């Protein structure tokens, strides 16, 4: 009895020693540089990769508001390094940081405009291959210098990279852009026809500091950036993709005197590809529910005829947005909607005949848009407050 008891006690004492980790692999938190965002840009002088990594300065987090002492004390440190490849540059960085970079908490990967135009294929492999990286990190294209984006200190957040991730997650309020993570991006990249898109981020000068602003989406042809979608065009894309969450639909009032803002409550999209005598028709059916959020006009729109009129105009506005996106994609011959994949899935046998010259076929696609808009409520007012 006592012998087994002693054995058990010894085992219990040994377990914490043996299970607490391996020799050589132990890493303390203060020996790591936690990276929250990364930027890849082209060094203008040497043509090499210029990598910027945003490292958290643990000591500064949350201390700014305390004694207000260091106004310039940033909670982050942007380290840059050049290299021939990304991994090369990351290891080069240890010359400045002294510690290994820990990229497991990386939230955003920002590519410079120049590099996006030359092609991302070479520069995306590391972010997928590295075992610490997550495929859920967001991908963005910077309109200006990448380091400027990562330098712009936000007003409410302490870390610019986290701020960008927060901005991206708020896409549902306007549906003017969409978050794209690494996995989504390479899904489109690997598809033979679909063109990837990625949000564009830029820095706008504010009063005291600079603001980060997401201005639209970049269109890629294969892995090269070829064009941009503005906000309306992006929403056109999202209508077809069925990724609209909410947003403001501005419609001119029937009497042309002002504008009416409708809030999108729910949108459902169904796209049916059709192939008729060699002609490709895409039936886009959209059902959208909105509510009257604001009317900036003197006419009282909270009436049944008013609702009906607004629904009509609203349908036109949505169609217009979709067509704008489609025209843009036709111009660039970039299948951002994924129509090619839809045809591939539905007409797999006929697809083989057309897949090789998809770029030439794409502009001839006929888009058949059918929007059914319903205004579901008018919120707190049944009549607009009109001067008596």
């Amino acid at each position, binding site marked *: 009895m006592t012998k087994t008891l002693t054995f058990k006690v010894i085992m219990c004492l040994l377990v914490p020693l043996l299970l607490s980790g*391996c020799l*050589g*692999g132990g890493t303390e938190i203060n020996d790591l540089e936690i990276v929250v965002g990364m930027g890849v840009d082209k060094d203008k002088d040497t043509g090499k990769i210029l990598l910027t990594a945003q490292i958290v300065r643990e000591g500064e987090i949350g201390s700014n508001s305390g004694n207000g002492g260091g106004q310039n004390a940033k909670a982050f440190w942007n380290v840059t390094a050049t290299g021939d490849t990304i991994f090369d540059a990351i290891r080069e960085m240890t010359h400045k940081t002294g510690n290994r970079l820990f990229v497991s908490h990386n939230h955003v990967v920002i590519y410079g405009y120049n590099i996006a135009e030359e092609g991302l294929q070479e520069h995306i492999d590391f972010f*997928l291959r590295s*075992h610490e990286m*997550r*495929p*859920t990190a967001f991908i963005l294209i910077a309109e200006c210098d990448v380091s400027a984006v990562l330098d712009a200190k936000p007003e409410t957040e302490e870390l610019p990279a986290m701020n960008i991730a927060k901005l991206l997650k708020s896409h549902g309020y306007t549906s003017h852009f969409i978050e794209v993570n690494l*996995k989504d991006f*390479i*899904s489109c990249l*690997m*598809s033979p026809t679909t063109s990837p898109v990625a949000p564009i981020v830029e820095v706008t000068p504010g009063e005291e500091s600079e603001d980060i602003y997401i201005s639209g989406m970049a269109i890629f042809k294969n892995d090269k950036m070829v064009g941009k979608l503005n906000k309306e065009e992006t929403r056109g894309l999202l209508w077809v993709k069925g990724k609209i969450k909410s947003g403001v639909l501005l419609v001119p009032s029937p009497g042309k005197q002002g504008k009416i803002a409708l809030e999108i409550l729910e949108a459902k999209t169904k796209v049916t590809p059709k192939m008729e005598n060699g002609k490709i028709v895409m039936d886009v059916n959209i059902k959208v529910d909105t509510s009257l959020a604001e009317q900036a006009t003197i006419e009282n729109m909270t009436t049944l005829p008013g609702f009906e009129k607004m629904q009509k105009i609203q349908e036109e506005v949505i169609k217009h947005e979709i067509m704008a996106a489609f025209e843009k994609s036709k111009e660039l011959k970039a299948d951002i909607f994924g129509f090619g994949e839809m045809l*591939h*899935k*539905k007409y*797999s046998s006929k697809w083989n005949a057309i897949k090789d010259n998809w770029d030439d076929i794409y502009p001839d696609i006929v888009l058949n848009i059918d929007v059914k808009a319903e205004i579901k409520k008018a919120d707190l007012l049944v009549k607009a407050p009109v001067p008596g």
Partner: protein
Amino acid sequence: MTNIEKGRISGPQLLFLVSGFVQGSVMLIDFAVGMAEKQTWMVILAGLLVSIPFVISYAALAKRFPGMNVIQINDIIYGRILGKLLSIYYIFFLFITLSFNIRDVGELYTIFLMPNTPFIFFLAVFTATCAYAVSRGIEVLARISYLFVITGIFVSISTTILLVDKMDFSNFLPLFELPFIRIFQGIHIMVSIPFGETIVFLMIIGYTNKDGNVIKNTLSGLLLGAFSLFIVAVRNTAVLGITQTIWTAPSFQSTRLIDIGTVLTRMDFLVGIAQTVLIFFKCCLFFYALLLAVSEILGLKSYMPLVLPLAGIEVIIAATVFQSPLDHAEITQNAGIIYSLPLMLVIPPLTLLIAKIRRLPESKGGKVT
């Protein structure tokens, strides 16, 4: 004839042993993903259908010779010399496959979980644990099999539920696209890896209780295991789509995408736990069968003296047999499924047939148990 193993397992325990064993190959279905891409789910079902008759033949064979293992059966059916040769083939298969599976664990850990720890360390610790488990006999493994099977199924189902919002079922379309030869090779991989490897149970089924209902339980175990593999394959294809072919381990990547309200993230540890536990279980059964077979052929009274030497040899083979995971995948996808084929698909049904024709074991030594 003396029996090395004195323990007996019950019918339901056999079911869970088989099921846990089949699920232990959950990492190995990635070999089929490279071949069958989005048709992996189809390949699993087809492989299962092809395997069922063979697995029934294993169970029927073991049922015909209660209390005996395949080494003893070979001696009875094929005589001493041919029987021994076939047994050595069987032992070779167990030996090599066990080292490959141990290597899988090392690769899983060095790539995904602890990249800075030496490879050999995982192999040694893992094999030592297996050695400890098998030295306790089949009854212990059988008792713990419930827990392992439930862990495996719980993880595959829970991760699937957490990923529902990331799934796109149009990823399966078009249903038939790949050339038949790739599907065929995919089916071949499924038949010879997760399902065909149940040939190990020729060493184990014999120790089931008389009322064990061997065939029914083996088959149910196979179906339960295949169900779990099927869920994993469907989840990976639905979530990862076209990208599933580029990852080393699609299961890890798909669970890395779990993001429920930014709180429930990084759930890949669940897959790490489940795969470790299941591969451990599979390796234990392999190791157990290997020990029993080797000591049977050497005429030992107990397999205990062999545990540590064989474990050491297995670790060394596992550490040196391949240069990299690529090597491993290449050999398994192309060569491994060929050399094991006669053992899985030809010899057991043939043995059963000969036993039926010669009315064995009733005529000779049938009462010896």
